[in-house]
């Protein structure tokens, strides 16, 4: 498994709490909206972690997307963005 994907999956698990991911394996195709149902406060917590770890600004990353792109935002797309930046 890609190292960045592994780390991002770990951050998501920390933010959401491991109990709630039982049976959900985080892959590149996992979407933030539909699959993870990330709540706004969890989203902020994840953004903080990404910023601390990679210096990546999640809000700025999303600022460039239209509504359909945000709805379809997947873990893989975030991983690619991070990989391209670091």
């Amino acid at each position, binding site marked *: 498994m890609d190292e960045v994907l592994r780390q991002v999956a770990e951050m998501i698990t920390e933010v*959401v*709490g491991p*109990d*709630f991911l039982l049976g959900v394996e985080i892959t590149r195709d996992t979407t*933030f*909206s*539909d699959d993870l*149902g*990330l*709540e*706004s*406060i*969890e989203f902020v917590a994840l953004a903080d972690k990404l910023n601390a770890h990679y210096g990546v600004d999640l*809000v700025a990353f*999303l*600022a*460039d*997307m*239209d*509504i*359909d792109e*945000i*709805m379809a935002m997947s873990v893989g797309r975030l991983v690619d963005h991070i990989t391209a930046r670091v």
Partner: protein
Amino acid sequence: MSRFLFVVPPLTGHVNPTASVGGELLARGHEVAWVGHPGTLAPLLPDDAVVFPAIDDLLEADIRTKRERWLALRGMAVVKFFWEEFLIPLGHAMVPGVADAVREFAPDVVVADQQALAGPLVAGHAGLPWVTSASTSAELINPLRTMPKVDAWVRDLLHGFAGGDIRFSDRLVLVYSSAALVAGEFGEEVAFVGPALTHRVERVEFPWHRLTGGRRVLVSLGTLNGPAGERFLNQVLEAVADLDVQVIMVAEPRPCPPNVLMLPSVPQLALMPHLDAVITHGGHNTVCEALAHGLPLVVAPIRDDQPTVAAQVVAAGAGVRLTYSRARAADVRSALESVLDEPEYAAAAELVRESFLAAGGATAAADRLEKVVAG
């Protein structure tokens, strides 16, 4: 004396503040009318209120069905559905009825709820001044500001509907909150009048004899949405089962511990003075009604403006926030015990209460509306 027309969507929380402000205007001798869904308005307004129809029962039922689908959505899909499937179509549907009401009632001012887009459109065509009744304070600071492309998409929709961004009036925006909750710099047209609670009509009965002594907590979660709603409600029931409090829970009947009084609806405003804390999903009305009574809150926001409202409560120090889809019984219990037992939460809620009192409520709103007529 002047004539005021309130334009409202078929949603209780959006009608309630207008019932109060309209009641105050009526008490001052003005003429007041409402236009919207008569079936939704009737229980919330005085018997002799003047109501014009803009939404028939069929459309209202259709909106409720759509709402069910909407409640199952998450994330940005909620925003897309809200604008494309709800707000814009509702705006179009209400235009003929609002236009008829404007012709017949000939108002001096149109007061449009921020989710009744037909109000500004029709008022604009008729050359009438229109003002905004902001049923939530969460959108005064544009929640889409960090997503410029999504914001542009919303502005395009509004341009297609009305030829401009009609989200807020540049003449007057009535906000039923105060600076104690809403941080930021706003123009002079934005009037923080605090919750409008006078003249309100509550026709729901309540079994007052079933209130026991000791501390009481209201649990008001709005329309329960699907499995996540059932899950949260069950966590609350488990959390309170062995607590020494009486819980008044607004929900359809189901098995519950003996200290829980389960009712499908309650006269929420009348109940407030009998409570010690409120657990809610963070609807703007419920939160501000609780704070207007100095009650601390446990807020578990679900969607829309609720995360922003929850953040306001936490920032004011008047409550604890929970994660709706994931909070456990132990989390609910610890949050509830905190707001009940740690006096700083009630003290912070009391500060918000004082700021609301100073804001003036329906009286201040009516003063501002009279000034719009005076020009």
